[in-house]
């Protein structure tokens, strides 16, 4: 119980710090890959605090409510995850949070955010089967949906769930909003939809979206960690190293691919879910 409380408090406090740092590292590495010097590692934090000082404006009286709910439920999602609770509960809370973000964009009735919202919806439809399959895979392997039980399973699940791991990595690119699948909004300047989904968000509202993104990334890496956790220190170390490598890998992909059409995102992620994901599920059933 004490351990859970520590875990949760650590998540609530450290996730935005580590998430922000990772975002900074991402920007430095990206710059180096492009032959630039790049900003400071702390640049995301400077940006964040600057956003807080902007003039408080909005396009309607409901958008901020939706965004606040988005942030709240993203934090709650991670809370459930790090408290060792049910993976499906985690996934459904995450969908609730994402829906709030999409509705916030729709509510502006502005062209770019709405197109971004439709694309975000499409991305959700693309990655959701694989996310569910991942949770089901953990359940079939360890006999429980609870994160706490999965972590304490003495046998590392990765060797038995390689297909699912690969599938999860694939959709992680969508989830982390990296090129080639950063359709709905992008942190690059070359988005054809202005800022996509977040065009009408500004000041504190935009800051909330940013911090939610940091929370989300940490909890997604938590998912990656689950594949390697086996209750030992060695497993934990391997898990953390793989998380970092994964993050680097996503940055690498981000810088080496052009944005693709939405059809590719949907086709490829469903194909991955059916092949890598479902075949692995069938294998787990027969184990």
């Amino acid at each position, binding site marked *: 119980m004490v351990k859970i409380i520590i875990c949760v408090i650590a998540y609530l406090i450290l996730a935005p710090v580590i998430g922000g740092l990772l975002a900074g590292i991402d920007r430095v590495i990206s710059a180096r890959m492009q032959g630039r010097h790049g900003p400071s590692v702390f640049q995301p934090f400077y940006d964040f605090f600057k956003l807080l000082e902007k003039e408080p404006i909005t396009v309607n009286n409901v958008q901020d409510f939706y965004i606040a709910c988005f942030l709240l439920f993203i934090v709650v999602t991670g809370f459930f995850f790090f408290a060792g609770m049910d993976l499906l509960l985690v996934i459904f809370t995450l969908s609730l949070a994402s829906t709030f973000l*999409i509705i916030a964009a*729709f509510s502006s009735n*502005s062209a770019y955010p709405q197109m971004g919202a439709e694309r975000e919806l499409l991305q*959700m*439809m693309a990655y959701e089967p694989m996310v569910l*399959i991942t949770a089901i895979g953990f359940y*079939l392997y360890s006999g429980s949906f609870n994160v706490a039980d999965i972590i304490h399973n003495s046998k590392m699940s990765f060797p038995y769930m390689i297909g699912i791991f690969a599938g999860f990595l694939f959709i992680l690119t969508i989830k982390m909003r990296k090129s080639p699948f950063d359709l709905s909004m992008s942190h690059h300047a070359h988005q054809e939809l202005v800022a996509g989904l977040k065009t009408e968000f500004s000041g504190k509202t935009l800051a909330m979206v940013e911090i939610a993104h940091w929370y989300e990334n940490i909890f997604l890496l938590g998912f990656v960690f689950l594949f390697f956790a086996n209750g030992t220190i060695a497993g934990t170390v391997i898990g953390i190293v793989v998380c970092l490598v994964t993050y680097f890998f996503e940055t690498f992909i981000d810088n080496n691919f052009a944005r693709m059409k939405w059809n590719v995102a949907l086709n490829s992620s469903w194909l991955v879910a*059916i092949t890598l994901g479902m075949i692995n599920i069938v294998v787990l059933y027969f184990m």
Partner: protein
Amino acid sequence: MSTIFILIIFAFVVALALLVLKADAGRDILVKIAAAVIAAGSIWTAVEFFRSGEDTVNIAMHSAESVISYAMLAIEVILALVVIFLGIKHKKYLASVLAAIQAPFTVWFELTKAHHIEVENNVSIDRLSIIMILIVGIVGSLITVYALGYMKDFQHHQGGPDRRPLFFFLMFTFLSAMFGLVVSNNLLWMFFFWEITTLCSFFLIGFTRTEEAVNNSFRQLVLNLIGGLSFLTGIIVLGSFYGTIELSTLVTLGVQGYGALMVVPTMFLALAGLTKAAQMPFHSWLLGAMVAPTPTSALLHSSTMVKAGVFLILKLAPCLGFNMAGIMVMLIGGITFLLASFAAISQSNGKRVLAYSTIANLGLIVICGGVGATGAVWAGIMLLIFHAITKSLMFLCVGTAEHQIGSRDIEDMDGLFGRLPRLASFMMIGIAGMFLAPLGMLISKWAAMTSFIDSGNFFLVAVICFGSAATAFYWTKWLGKLSAIVAARENIESGVNKEETFVHGALVAMEIVICLIFPFVSKIFVIPYIEGVWGVSNLAATLSSNNMIIMCVMLAVLLILILLFYGKTNKKIVPIYMAGANTGDNLTYMGSMQTEMTQSLRNWYMEKYFGEKKMNMLGLASTITILGVAFAIAIGTIITMMSVMGGGF
């Protein structure tokens, strides 16, 4: 436990009274009083049931048995003659032929075979019946109240002869038949009510008597008469080879592990359930039913008709599972759920989206019955309850929107939030209830998912993963349309009837309250029902109590947040970004040639991926093949049984 009989008779007497009552004022009062009495009566039935302390209240009714059976037979023959006549009149001969086959078989079986079969209990009421009685009694009668205001507008718009007396007669007859259906244990009695509901929907769908309405009503009739014929065949096989026509006997044998032995009659009964529950390949009747006035759709989709189909399949669950009947039901349900969810993406007509969503959700309930395990049945019953409330809310909201804005197209619901704020909020709650945590349908879908995983059927696992993704897509884009704040919209809320607003409000309240207390619903109704049927004790709910409590708390928190903070801001409100210069009204901008351009936004429908035609083709081809194979085997088995029994026939 006599209240239920009073309910059946009362609803029918009210129906007759409404048929002769022509004055608006009289109808208004009678319908409201009758709806209140029926709702109260169904609650009282539940109270009586719980006071009896039994799992199943059986009522033998031996003294009245033959009178009732003969009366039912006589009515069935008369109705068959009516169908034959109407079929010939409208040149829909297939309907006439089906009725002409069904009637003599019914008479033959009743007069020669059924007499020798002793029926222990003609009526039996368990917790599932009580759930159905409450749904029919409360949701169903709310819909009749809504219909009062709606049909006034409808008559006003439509003109022509006033056929409202017939409309209300049919609605109350429908409720009466549903009450009868859910408490019948004698399958011949259930069959009688089954056919009455088919005929009521036939007349309701054809209500406007336009060519389209007549065609669609006959399609419904033909498909459901096929189902009826299958029901009858099931009864005849059961009576001839197994010597019983009681549903409880069939179910008990299923629980005892003889499901495989009973597979043939189970298959025929299940097929009847599939037709009524609008599963592929029979689903087209439910899509066609939209031509009827909205209260009809609400009634058919939520509390009656299709729910009779899934009720039967859930009842049969112990006989299903991994045998031929169960596999057939699971496959049909799975394919229907997946393809109907996809097809809903391509639709912009609000009622059509609702229809596909109904078909898909019924598919999910059908799978739950087909899996036949306790966990899946728990999820199936929960889905049934939540779906009844939420879907009736959605239909009634779309009906009102249609009368106010003159369109049922989702694209025309742009900025509904400005024009009809209350209605738009109700619709948003309804939509959220269909797919979002922490509301009802998601909770039940979650339970369904875990039970499918435990059943070891990976086809179903894949189906629910992909189907849920599609479900979220089509609901969210509708939700987005509703939530958009479009400038310069006039509030026209005052045009909405007070009856309609009352019913919307009542359904929203029910949806939220049931979501908040669903652990109790599980504990008081669903768990004891399953324990009673399967003869197990200490059954746990499919979802852990932790998760159930978290869902309730999340909902409570959300409600508080909405009440406290929704729509409040002290920030400066600025115009939106429009690429060209916003002319200031958020609707037009200066184009590159210095002309004013109007912005219009449309949703995605992805016709190439999820086009309706493609999904229907795929669905029809695969489900017809499955049914063909399954019934070829079943009929072969019957022929073998006949030759083994020698002079059985």
